[in-house]
Each structure stands twice: as C-alpha cells, then as structure tokens.
C-alpha cells in the first residue's frame, strides 16, 4: 500500500470513529454537567461534577436505579444462559440431523424475530396479569427468550455447520458416546460460536425497553432501560437529563467490558488445522 493510500485509510477511519463515538462522547460529557449547566452552549461542562453519579448510586435516583441494575443483570444473564443452552441443542440438531420440518423451524424462528414486539406486548400484558407473571423476573425472562432464541439458533447453527462432521465420527470410533462426542469435541470447537451468540443475546435482552416498561410496575423486576425513562429532576422545573446520561454511561460499561473480554474468543478461528492443510 502506498503512503497516499494509507493516509486516506487513516483519515477515513478517523471520520468513521468520530461519527460512531460522538454521541457516546456527548453522553459522557453530559453526565459530568450540572443540571443547570446543560444549556451552557459548549460541548464540555463548565465545571465537571460527579454529582450525577453520586445521585444514581447514593442519592435521590438510587432507589430507582440500583434495583433496576440488579434486575437487568439478573434477568438478562438468566435469559441469555437459557437461550444459549436451548439454542445449542436446537442448532446442533438443525446442523446435523435430517428431519422433516427443519426449514419450517428455521423460518418460524426468523418470523418470530421479525415480528414487531409492540404488537405482542398488549396481549402479553393481559395474559401475564391473569396468570400472575406481571412484574416478575420470569415474566420478563420468557419474552426475552422469544427475542434472543431465534437469532441464537441462527448464529449457532451456522457455527455448528462449520465443524466437520468427521470430527464427531472420529470421536465415536474412538469410543465416545454421542453425548461424550458432543461435550468433548463439538462444544469446545463451538465455544467461539457460543460466546458470540451469548454476547449478542445478552445485548438484545439488555437493550430491551418495550417489554421492560410494559410488563413491570415496581422495583421487583423493572430493568434499567425502563428505569431511566422514569427518572425525574430535583424539581418539576428541572430536567433529569444529566442523571439519565450518567446512568446511560453506567449501563454501557458492561457491554464494552464484555466485548473487550471476549473479542479474542469471538475472532479466533478455532477450527484452523482441524482438517487437511
């Protein structure tokens, strides 16, 4: 690559980064402004303050925020875990077995994924109230599974298809049961796929707002995105913008940490060298 080309790539990269990161930078900057400082007309706060952060953790907003954070973590982790386990078995069957209705399952999964959430939420609200799932963890975990399962099945079956079937047959000839072959050979090889799927599923659940706001009413199960919408200012004349921004920064952190932790695993092509070379 010539120097000229390189320069263009670098400039292009910086532009894209700016475009993507500017809103985040703005949120971060907002979270350090005092409520009265929002309209100061400049990007940076006049005087940076930790006030908003102490508000959400110890101050006025903490009653709303902390339980929501706990709920969000709990509900999303459980939903992701169940979704990954179910999707792993489903995807394995789809990738390996020939059974009638295979395409039906895949297309139904896709159909569920593209079905607008808002049209389900009202009937679900009524149903949940009748059977007592309204405002419970389980009441959110179930809809989250319906959100995350389709995409999990699709991504994982793509990963499973990549693993040569002979690997599993070799294990069986070597004396493994089907379950042992799955656990000792297929699962380790599919690990990058499982991680990727888990992260995607977690994000989907973590980012949900519609279910979160509609199917909950108290601290018992309200997730963070819903809680953010309920923040109020110190008085009715004050916008809660800065507190919301601080909370938004906090909930972004787990997402960033997850990606940084697992990007190696996501990228690693573990099947390299499994077959001929």
């Amino acid at each position, binding site marked *: 690559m010539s120097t000229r080309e390189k320069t263009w790539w670098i400039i292009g990269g910086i532009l894209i980064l700016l475009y993507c990161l500017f809103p985040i930078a703005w949120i971060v900057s907002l979270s350090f402004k005092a409520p009265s400082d929002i309209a100061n007309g400049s990007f940076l706060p006049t005087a940076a303050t930790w006030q908003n952060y102490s508000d959400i953790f110890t101050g006025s907003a903490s009653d709303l925020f902390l339980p929501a954070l706990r709920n969000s973590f709990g509900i999303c982790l459980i939903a992701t875990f169940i979704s990954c386990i179910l999707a792993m078995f489903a995807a394995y069957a789809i990738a390996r077995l020939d059974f009638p209705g295979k395409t039906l399952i895949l297309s139904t999964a896709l159909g569920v994924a593209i079905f607008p959430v808002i049209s389900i939420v009202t009937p679900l609200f009524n149903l949940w109230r009748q059977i007592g799932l309204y405002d419970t963890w389980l009441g959110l975990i179930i809809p989250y599974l319906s959100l995350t399962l389709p995409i999990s099945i699709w991504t994982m079956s793509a990963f499973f298809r990549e693993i*040569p079937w*002979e*690997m599993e*047959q*070799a*294990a*069986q*000839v*070597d*004396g*493994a*049961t089907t379950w*042992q072959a799955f656990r000792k*050979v297929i699962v*380790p*090889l599919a690990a990058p796929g499982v991680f990727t799927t888990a992260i995607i599923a977690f994000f989907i659940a973590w980012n949900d707002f519609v279910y979160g706001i509609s199917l909950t009413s108290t601290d018992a199960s309200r997730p963070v995105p819903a809680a953010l919408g309920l923040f109020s200012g110190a008085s009715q004349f004050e916008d809660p913008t800065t507190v919301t921004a601080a909370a938004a920064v906090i909930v972004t952190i787990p997402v960033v940490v997850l990606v940084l932790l697992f990007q190696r695993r996501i990228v690693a092509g*573990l*099947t*390299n*060298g*499994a*077959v*001929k*070379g």
Partner: protein
Amino acid sequence: MASIEMRNIVKQYGDGFPAVNDVSLDIADGEFMILVGPSGCGKSTLLRMIVGLEDITSGDMIIGGKRVNDLAPRDRNLSMVFQNYALYPHMTVYENIAFPLRLAKVSDDEVRRRVTEASDVLELKDHLERKPANLSGGQRQRVAMGRAIVRQAEAFLFDEPLSNLDAKLRGQMRTEISRLQRRLGITTVYVTHDQTEAMTLGDRVCVLRKGKIQQVASPRELYEQPVNLFVAGFIGSPPMNFLPATLEGNRLQTPFGQIELDERRVAAVKGRDLLLVGIRPEYFEDASLVDEAKRPLGSLFRARVDVTEWLGDSQYAYIPYEAPEEITRQLRDLSRELDSEELRTQAIVSIDSTSRIREGREAEFWLDARKVHVFDPQTGENLTRDAEAGARLTQMATEDRVEQVQEAQAQGTTVGGGTTRAGAA
C-alpha cells in the same frame, strides 16, 4: 485382532439407490485388505459400514465371530484413520493420541506410557505439546495414525489416508503404513482409489464397481489374471490396451497384425464374431531390441508412432489405431467409468528407454503373445482367464503373509513392546 466377515451386505439409500449391493467378503485375521475402485463404487460406504458410521440395510457384518450390525461404533473396538484426519484442533498432539484411552478411563500413567510408545513408533516425540494446526500434512497424518494404534483395536480402517499428501510424502507414508501393519500384524482394511497403493500395500485387493465386487485376489492375480474388462482396465498403469480382434483359425486378427493363440485360448474364445484383446504396455517392445531367442514367441508389426514419452528409466509410445464404432463407444464408456477420459483409440506401448523410435515415424514393434487376454466385448468377461494360475498366485501371497506375521510375532514387536529409538529425545 479379529477377522472380518461380510455376508450379503447391502446398503440402500433413501431413494432406493444401492450404494453397496450384495457384498460378501472374508478378511482373515491379520490380513491387509484393500478396497479399491473408481469414485462412487461404494468402497467408502462399505468401510463406514464396517466401523458402524453407516447403517447396514441388510446382510451380516461379523467381526471376530460376533455379529455387529446393531452395535454402535464405540462398541466395535475398531480404529479408523479418516481422509482429512479429523484431528481435534483444540487438543494437543498428546491429548489427541490419548483421547481413546481417556474415554476408556485408562490411568494417567498407563496413558503416558502408551502415548509415548505410539509417538516413538511414529516419530512424533518432539511434537507432543503442539496443536494440530501447527503441524505439516505428513505430521498430522502420523498423529491420526497414532490415535489409531494407541489402543488395542480389533482392526485398523483407513479411508484414503494419503490422498491429501503430495506425491513424495505419499510414497514415504505408504511404506510406513505397510511396515507398521506388518509389525503389528493387525487386520487392516484400506480404502483407496489409487491403484499404486492397492498394488503395493494389499495382501489381497477387492475391486468394486457400482457397489458390486468384481474380483478379490492378490495384486499379482489381479494383474495377470483379471476376471473382466473392468478389472483389467483398472489395475495397471499405464492401463491395459484393448484392441478389437476377430478369430481366424488359431490367430487373432488385430489392427496390429496377427496374434497366434495356444489351443486352450483358441477353444475358450471360439464362436464369437468380435473380440477384444487386452495387451499390457510392457508386452510390447521395439522390435530392433528384442533377443533373437524371444522373437519367435511373439509377432511383429509396423505402426506409426504418434507421441513418445521418455522418462529416463522407461519410455512410452502412443500408437493410434482404427476401431469399429461399437468398440470405440464401449472403450469410451469403460474409461469414463474408470475416472479417465479416453479421447482417441490408441495403444500405449512400453519400449526400452534406449530405443530410438521417433515421433511421427513408422516403426517396427514386437508383441509378446504369451500373456494376452481375450475379452468378450458384450459382457466384458475375460474368456482366457486361467483360474488355477490365478489361485496359485493368491495362495503364494497368503503364505507369504502368514510367514511374515509369524516372524513379527516371534520378534514380539507390537506397540506394547516396541523398540525405543535411543537418543531420539
């Protein structure tokens, strides 16, 4: 170690296509059996039925006197080397080889001892801690073999194990496999489409065509007494030449002159209009280089040479000839079935490398008439096959094998008591 018997094995796929059709085959204890044939002949399917990765539609599979049709692969105690090796990429070489032992819950000390021995035999000692991704093709192949020999399996199964290696390495590994099998004396079934591997490795070779056994015999018998046109065309490189011929008295009239037949062969071929005579390339010679003593045993003819190929130790000449439409079509069908494409009817002739026969010129050739075979063009059957002579050749090969196995056992060279290479570490 065990014998493998197959009784009327059939494999039918969902659409009713019989991939393997009524195969009966006995593989003796300690024998090296080759399954060979062009692609799609059912050889891999048959192997996978032995190991249990493919269901058997009907028939009996008997390993070591026990019917195994309904046993899962893990209960058959066979080990297999796959075409693409199927190494576990997330495990080290050591763990790859140890995998069957780990599944059998062998103690750590025993695992270490046996993996070390297997890796000594295969010279993998220096690579035990590496991952398969960092190995060369030949090393991966050896790891796959290590995984196969590390436990006391009833038999080894190989599914085209050398087809992913380059030509030089393939030759080395071929002799390595042969040596290992002799040393361990374990029943081996080896699938290949490469007839060089079939000829060099096998005690006996089973030639398959469209799911049916054509002939099971020692390599020598296959070469010298093939049962039909298909086997004759498949075994041998360059392949056997097939010339159209008609019988006149006790002579065959061919595009390359007359070939005199002995009484037995005349009696066998009598009463047919059109015949195919099969002549191996090496039955020809440049007439000017033939001994006076040998000359009367064959016939002479003149022909124009199209192309010559000089290879140093040998030389081939290509001689085009005319054949009736019917024969041309049949030869074309045959070569297509053998995975090659014969574009023109030509004979490939092996001549001495010192011969000065030139391309595009006419030259005189000598043809050894003693070993030619005559085939029926309709059925492909070999009319002049000498079954007794063939059986004798296979009998000799069997005796050789038994002797070698006894010798190996007398020396006690199994993996368990394998020689350790001093100083290799």
